[in-house]
């Protein structure tokens, strides 16, 4: 999904889904929400069970990639009753357009939600045009 296509000002929410890449590895694409204000774009990504140390965010060539490892295994002696194993990787890929100032992208994680802040480039912010 390209951030350049964000023209709605209300948040856009995307559901959880499975993705398989060319090497056959399966990732879970997490639920996320896009929103923006005049200074920046914000991406709120739901990553339950993933702590700060299990997260990796990289930006390369306009592609923002986020990988979160969720690896909770039940302690010895526990039996799963309605079998939902919690050991997989979340991966989210977003195309970052040239409106974003790449050097100042920041990420904040708390309570299983990662917030990415993508500041808009100064020169590309909304400018008021005076009417004389």
């Amino acid at each position, binding site marked *: 999904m390209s951030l350049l296509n964000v023209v709605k000002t209300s*948040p856009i*929410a995307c*559901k*959880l*889904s*499975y993705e398989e890449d060319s090497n056959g590895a399966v990732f879970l694409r997490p*639920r996320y929400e896009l*929103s923006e*204000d*005049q200074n920046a774009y*914000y991406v*709120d990504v*739901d*990553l*339950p*069970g*993933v*702590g700060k140390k299990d997260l990796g965010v990289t930006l390369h060539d306009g592609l923002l990639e986020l990988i979160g490892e969720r690896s*909770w295994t*039940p*302690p010895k*002696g*526990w*039996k*799963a*009753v*309605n*079998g*939902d194993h*919690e050991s997989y990787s979340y991966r989210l890929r977003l195309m970052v357009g040239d409106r974003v100032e790449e050097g100042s992208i920041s990420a904040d994680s708390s*309570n*299983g*939600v990662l917030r990415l802040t993508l500041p808009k480039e100064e020169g590309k912010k909304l400018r008021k045009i005076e009417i004389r």
Partner: protein
Amino acid sequence: MRYVSPFSSKYGITPFSGSSFSNFEKELGKVLGSLPSLFDVGGYRISDSGSRFARPSWYEHDDAYVARIEVPGVEPKEVSIEVCDNMVWLSAERKSKSKEGESSMSYSQLFSIPDGVDDAMARAEFEDGVLSITFPRAEGLKPRKIEVK
């Protein structure tokens, strides 16, 4: 609570009718709490009223049953867990800041807990958006090994 089910209100039955949980409602709670993907497609179900289901995953061991529920974005103090008559009502508010100010959305789930637990001793832990509730088994009902002589 929204779901697709044969038990619609025109039959005069809703999960909250009457002042106590009857056997019927226990069954309904079991269905909602443990059936995979009947009511949501691959993850959270997003409804217009801004509330979301949070299905528990159950584990058991000799001393207790444990339910793990995903509630990302919630502060531990915003989680409310009420236990009544073998049913658990979980609700948690998720606040988010945006340009327009604070908005909030809530997770809400009613589920039943297995028989034979001492619900006065239940405890909950929260880490990275996952809530883990432990229901210790009542003393006399723990599995006992019987020796064969």
